[in-house]
């Protein structure tokens, strides 16, 4: 009685694998026949935008096959260099030295909002004071004109693109050891929303009514001030290619930089690329 069951379950296990191979082969052939597929990999911050852009682009161009993977900015850069992906995505202010071999296109900009609890009386901080808070030189709100309470400094894990951009825009420093470390934009927001003494930073698109975004050097974090260059905590989002893009790769980047792509990026909370340049 036992052996037929085993045999049938064995063949059942084989079938999906066989189908997957056939499917992959078909996809591969189709892609080859229609002028090549394009893979994007990298920044998890830009991944959802890239997926939406790819879906639209694939719908507009039935011959195209653009796919998107995450993995983080570091992976995006290495994938673009070693050819695992035709386009790498990175959201860093300072691209690492390895990226010098790549051609970069700024396709969007993301403001980094400095946020506090809504009950906090402070509404503006100059950049040097923000830096002092994050390096631990200022640790009480009364030194910034607020109430007499210790500052809960909230930062991101080392390796986060948001953190490395934030620190390099302010001017490299060592983060205070007292800083609370949260591992995503969302948990930074929750921490600041729950703690009236906290200060944190996160992607501009994720600011909501539970937290208050400070003005920095008098400039509010918003689309106009970022585009005018008045708000300076801004990081670029790069698409990176090895060498001059051509064919479908070029067509996709042109689509992202064109009016439709830029409008989609803007509608979903990022800022359009103000100018087109290399890293």
């Amino acid at each position: 009685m036992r052996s037929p069951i085993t045999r049938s379950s064995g063949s059942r296990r084989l079938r999906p694998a066989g189908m997957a191979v056939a499917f992959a082969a078909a996809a591969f052939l189709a892609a080859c026949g229609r002028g090549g597929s394009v893979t994007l990999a990298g920044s998890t911050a830009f991944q959802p935008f890239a997926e939406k852009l790819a879906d639209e682009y694939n719908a507009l161009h039935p011959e195209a096959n653009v796919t998107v993977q995450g993995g983080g900015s570091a992976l995006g850069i290495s994938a673009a260099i070693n050819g695992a992906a035709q386009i790498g995505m990175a959201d860093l202010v300072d691209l690492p030295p390895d990226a010098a071999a790549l051609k970069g296109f700024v396709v969007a900009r993301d403001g980094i909002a400095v946020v506090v609890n809504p009950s906090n009386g402070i509404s503006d901080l100059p950049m040097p004071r923000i830096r002092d808070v994050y390096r631990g030189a200022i640790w009480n709100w009364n030194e910034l004109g607020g109430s007499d309470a210790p500052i809960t400094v909230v930062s991101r894990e080392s390796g986060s693109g948001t953190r490395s951009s934030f620190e390099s825009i302010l001017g490299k420093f060592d983060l205070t050891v007292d800083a609370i470390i949260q591992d995503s934009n969302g948990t930074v927001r929750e921490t600041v929303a729950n703690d009236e003494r906290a200060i944190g930073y996160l992607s501009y698109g994720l600011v909501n009514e539970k937290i208050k975004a400070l003005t920095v050097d008098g400039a509010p974090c918003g689309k106009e001030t970022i585009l005018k260059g008045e708000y300076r905590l801004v990081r670029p989002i790069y698409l990176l290619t090895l060498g001059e893009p051509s064919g479908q790769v070029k067509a996709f980047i042109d689509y992202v930089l064109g009016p439709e792509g830029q409008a989609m990026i803007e509608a979903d909370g990022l800022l359009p690329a103000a100018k087109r340049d290399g890293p």
Partner: protein
Amino acid sequence: MTGGSDALVRRLLAAIACTAVLCLLVIALFIFKEGLPFLFKVGLGNFLLSSDWRPDAGKYGILSMIASSLWVTFGALLVGAPLGMAGAVFLSEFSPTGLVRFVKPAIELLAGIPSVVFGFIGVMVLAPIIRNAGGGPGLSILAASIVLGVMILPTIMSISIDALAAVPPSYREGALALGATRWQAVRMVVLKAASSGLVAGAILGMGRAIGETMAVIMVAGNAIKMPDSVLDSARTLTANIALEMGYATGLHRQALFATGIALLVVIMILNGLAAAALRRRGTGT
């Protein structure tokens, strides 16, 4: 024939038992393979005796994280062990059987709640209470200890209940016959007889506490510094690995595997100490 199949079954079971050991061995080998080159490069002293963890600057000191892991684990035991054991004593010695039949499954259900839920409750409820009452950031060793204490409660409690149930009824009857009250019988006879099982429960609870990651990342705050009060934020060894593994490459990645080695060694030392304490107690009585 019966003898032959007996031997077969015995060998089969032995082989199956060995796979568990093999898993442990393979995991340990893998972690050591990835982490040991780092230890030779950076040096054990710079790794274990420094609290300066700045991977960008080539600093990889985990002393504060070892200390934080110990603080949080003992804090969790301080919360979870008395509650768990007292609960077990009540349920198995003093309560009507109907209550046990209802309460024990309920407690075991507690073990099935995902750690992210415990973490979320810790962040939303516990941390603000601690911040307002004691100061500090709220996300702290104390918050992590309480959350983990509740999380290890089912482990400690169900093993303690089993240990108490394993004490022969004749022990209790003997004590009661000698004129002991119910509580005296429990305190002087039953708890002593069940002590090894109770300690085993605490050890398993401790293992779960030191290895827990998700809830700790959420409620401990993850600051990299030597904690000097339970109200301080702290980063445990597990939190360090989980927070940075996603991005780490090269030496940084190896450093995280080396953190895994340190965690493995800390767990082995703690388990060894507990086992030794158990043996000494066993020979003493």
